[in-house]
């Protein structure tokens, strides 16, 4: 069914349309929440709160943006609120411009060729998780929306109420921050052998 028609029916109180709308978007919202919170239970809570809010405010959706970006905005805000409540995110970390002198002070070497296989390794997945968790939420949102969810700069900018250059700067800083976090792991000697063992 046409999404606009479905939304119109849902706004009018048609429960069947509301159910269809929820079922159509539950997976995207859940995965976004999971990436933000890194916790299944929290992600489920965020998903439920997102749809509760969305259905309550559905009449305010003007159709100027895509429906999923409107929904994502709600999900991101609820996720950030959840993170603040749990105080799991390290608010003390501030990310500034990368220190290029330090980066060049170290010998930059390429990473092992088989890094992609490492995502199946539990220890490595935990490292990815903890690095993302250390990334301040306002940078994490940009990284997740742009690099993991595949949203454009323009969509991300509208969704987070940021300027275009702010999205770009945060994205680059987030990428460099995460790269630096992973670098230590790849810097370990024989990491590939250890991974394969």
């Amino acid at each position: 069914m046409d999404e606009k028609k479905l939304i119109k029916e849902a706004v009018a109180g048609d429960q069947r349309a509301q159910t269809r709308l929820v079922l159509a978007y539950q997976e995207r919202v859940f995965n976004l929440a999971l990436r933000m919170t890194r916790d299944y239970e929290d992600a489920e809570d965020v998903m439920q709160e997102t749809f509760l809010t969305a259905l309550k405010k559905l009449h305010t959706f003007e159709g100027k943006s895509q429906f999923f970006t409107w929904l994502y905005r709600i999900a991101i805000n609820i996720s950030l609120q959840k993170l603040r409540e749990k105080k799991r995110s390290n608010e003390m970390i501030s990310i500034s411009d990368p220190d290029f002198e330090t980066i060049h002070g170290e010998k930059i070497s390429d990473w092992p060729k088989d890094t992609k296989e490492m995502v199946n390794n539990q220890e490595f997945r935990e490292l990815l998780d903890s690095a993302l968790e250390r990334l301040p939420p306002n940078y994490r949102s940009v990284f997740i929306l742009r690099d993991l969810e595949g949203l454009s700069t323009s969509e991300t900018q509208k969704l987070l109420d940021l300027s275009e250059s702010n999205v770009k700067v945060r994205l680059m800083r987030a990428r460099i921050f995460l790269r630096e976090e992973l670098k230590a792991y790849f810097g370990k000697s024989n990491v590939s052998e250890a991974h394969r063992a």
Partner: protein
Amino acid sequence: MSVKHIGLKKITSLSQFCDKLGKDITNDVCREVEKELEACPDCRLFYNTIENTVELYRLSFENRCVTKDMSHRLLKKLKLPENQDEISEEMFDESEKNQ
């Protein structure tokens, strides 16, 4: 600051305006990033590792499915019916109440 530092800083700064990290040849800034990368092997390595980082996150955070139980709990929380029969039944009940 050495020439290398300036190169990397310039590339990083430019690449904020090139979404595909130097691979979009239709974009002037991206072409410039690519040119800079060619002139600075260390910068190229640095960029490879950034691309690698993004790729690793993409691979590790593949979409998870919403289970039937989760979906059931969600609709219950929203007080929405799960299927058409249930909807019809509720609507019927409502119309009966209104009579």
